[in-house]
C-alpha cells in the first residue's frame, strides 16, 4: 500500500548523526570551499551588461551575468541589487572576478569590486567611460580575464568537510506531487546535510503563505521567528495594499492545471523541503548565511524561481536542489541545480532536464527515506564535480528580485 509522506517521515531516524563526510573542492582565501571554480564577469548595471557578455564570450570558461538593474534604483532595490552582485562575486564557487561598469551608474563597479575583495580572491574592475568605449573595454577586459582564467586553472581540488556546504532549496512549476513526493524527499536530504553540520536555505516567502503557523514554532530564536512571520506578512500586505488579488499570480496557471487550487495548498506542499530541522534564523534576500552559525535558514525571496535561486546563491549557496511537478529547465550561472520531480509523467516527458524521479514514491511505493538518500547521494556527487542536467545543458538563468520602481 502507498504510504503517505507523513507516515514515512515519522520513520526517519537520527542515524545520520556523527557521520563525517568529505568532499573535494576549491579552498578560497577566506577559508570557504567552492565546488566549482568559475571566472565571473559582473556587469555593474544594465548599461554594461552587453560589454560584460562580450568579454565572457572571448575567454574560455568565463561566465557573465547580464541583468536589468544597477542604475536609477533607490532604497531596497538599490541595496538588493548591490548585495546580489557582491554576493555572486563572493560565492565560493567563484575563483576570480572582473567587474565591468559603465561609469555613471548608481552602483559603481569599484564599490562592488572592493566588497568582493574582502574574500581575498582576485578581483579587478574596468569602466567603459574610462577605457573609451566598447572595443577598448572588451580588449582590456579580455586581457584581464584571460590572465585570471590561466591563474585559477592552476588550482587543485582539496578535501573538505560536508559541513561547509550551503544547500539552496527551491521548487517551481509545482503540482500536487511536489508536496507528496519531491519536496518531502528534499526535506530528508536537507535534514541529512544539517545533521552533518551543513546548512540549508528554505526560500520563496509567497509560498509560505498558509503554512507559516507550522514553520514558526521551529525557529530556535523567538525574535527570528517573529521576523519570519513579518516577512510573510510583508509579502501578503504588498498584494493587499496594491488592491491586487494574489490569485492573479499564485498559484500559476500551470500549478492549477496540475491540480493545485490555492496558495495555501501550494505552500503546505512547499514547506516540506525544509524537513524537520529547527530554523537557526532568517535572511534578507541575498544576505550572506553566517558560516559561524550553520544550519537551516529561511531567506525572504519571491516564489519566482530564478529570482529566488539567485538570492540563495548570492547568500552563499554552492548547490541548489529544485523540485518541479510540471517540469522546468532552469539553472544558475555559478551553482549547479539538481532537478527532482514527484511526477513520473513529467520525469519521462522532460527527461533531459530532470535528474531524479521521486514519482517512484507514488507509482512504485519507493520509501521516502530511500528517495531522500538517492537525492542526498546525488548532491554529494554533484558537489564532487558531476554535472546535473541543468548545468550540462548550459542553463544559467539569473534574475534579481525587486519590489519598487526604476526612477
Amino acid at each position, binding site marked *: 500500500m502507498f504510504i503517505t509522506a507523513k507516515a514515512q517521515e515519522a520513520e526517519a531516524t537520527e542515524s545520520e548523526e556523527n557521520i563525517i563526510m568529505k568532499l573535494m573542492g576549491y579552498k578560497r582565501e577566506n577559508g570557504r570551499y567552492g565546488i566549482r571554480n568559475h571566472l565571473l564577469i559582473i556587469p555593474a548595471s544594465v548599461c554594461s551588461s552587453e560589454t560584460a557578455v562580450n568579454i565572457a564570450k572571448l575567454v574560455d570558461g568565463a561566465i557573465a551575468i547580464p541583468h536589468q538593474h544597477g542604475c536609477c534604483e533607490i532604497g531596497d532595490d538599490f541595496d538588493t541589487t548591490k548585495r546580489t552582485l557582491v554576493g555572486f562575486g563572493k560565492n565560493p564557487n567563484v575563483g576570480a572576478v572582473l567587474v565591468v561598469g559603465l561609469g555613471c551608474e548608481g552602483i559603481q563597479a569599484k564599490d562592488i569590486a572592493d566588497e568582493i575583495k574582502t574574500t581575498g580572491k582576485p578581483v579587478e574592475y574596468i569602466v567603459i567611460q574610462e577605457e573609451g568605449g566598447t572595443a577598448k573595454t572588451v580588449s582590456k577586459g579580455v586581457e584581464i580575464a584571460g590572465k585570471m582564467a590561466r591563474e585559477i586553472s592552476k588550482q587543485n581540488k582539496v578535501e573538505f568537510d560536508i559541513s561547509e556546504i550551503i544547500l539552496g532549496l527551491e521548487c517551481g512549476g509545482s503540482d500536487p506531487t511536489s508536496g507528496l513526493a519531491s519536496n518531502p524527499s528534499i526535506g530528508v536530504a536537507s535534514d541529512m546535510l544539517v545533521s552533518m553540520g551543513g546548512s540549508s536555505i528554505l526560500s520563496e516567502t509567497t509560498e509560505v503563505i498558509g503554512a507559516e503557523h507550522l514553520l514558526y514554532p521551529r525557529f530556535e530564536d523567538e525574535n527570528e521567528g517573529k521576523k519570519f512571520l513579518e516577512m510573510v506578512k510583508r509579502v501578503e500586505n504588498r498584494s493587499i495594499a496594491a488592491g491586487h488579488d*494574489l490569485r492573479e499570480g499564485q498559484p500559476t496557471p500551470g500549478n492549477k492545471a496540475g491540480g493545485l487550487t490555492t496558495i495555501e495548498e501550494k505552500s503546505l506542499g512547499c514547506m516540506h523541503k525544509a524537513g524537520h530541522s529547527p530554523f537557526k534564523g532568517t535572511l534578507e534576500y541575498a544576505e550572506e548565511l553566517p558560516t559561524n552559525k550553520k544550519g537551516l535558514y529561511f531567506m525572504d525571496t519571491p516564489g519566482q524561481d530564478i529570482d529566488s535561486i539567485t538570492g540563495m546563491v548570492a547568500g552563499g549557496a554552492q548547490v541548489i536542489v529544485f523540485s518541479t511537478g510540471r517540469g522546468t529547465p532552469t539553472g544558475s550561472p555559478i551553482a549547479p541545480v539538481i532537478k527532482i520531480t514527484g511526477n513520473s509523467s513529467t520525469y519521462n516527458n522532460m527527461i533531459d532536464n530532470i535528474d531524479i524521479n521521486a514519482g517512484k514514491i507514488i507509482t512504485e511505493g519507493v520509501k521516502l527515506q530511500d528517495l531522500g538518500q538517492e537525492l542526498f547521494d546525488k548532491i554529494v556527487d554533484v558537489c564532487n564535480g558531476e554535472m546535473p542536467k541543468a548545468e550540462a545543458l548550459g542553463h544559467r538563468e539569473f534574475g534579481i528580485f525587486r519590489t519598487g520602481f526604476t526612477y
Partner: protein
Amino acid sequence: MQSALHIDEKDNLVTCLREIKKGETINIEGKDYTANADIPVFHKMAIADIKKGENCMKYGQIIGTATVDIHTGDYVHVHNCESTRGRGDRK
C-alpha cells in the same frame, strides 16, 4: 496502487492518484465514494459535504474556503474553492 490519498484524518479532500471518471466508485480507507465528475490525476475530490463558506482541508490544514455547497464526490478545484490570503481585491 491506491486510487486516492487521504493525507490527514481532518481532511475533507483526497488527492486522486489516477484519473477518476464520473460515476466511478473508489474505496478510501474502507469506505466507498462515487465521483460526481471526471477528476484528473492529482486533482482533488470531496469525501464529505462542505457547505459554502466552510473550510476545505488537506494536509490537516485549511487550503481554502468553499465558494458553493460542495457535496461528497464532487471535484474540488478553483471553481468551488478559493484562497482567503493576499486578497487585495476584497478591500
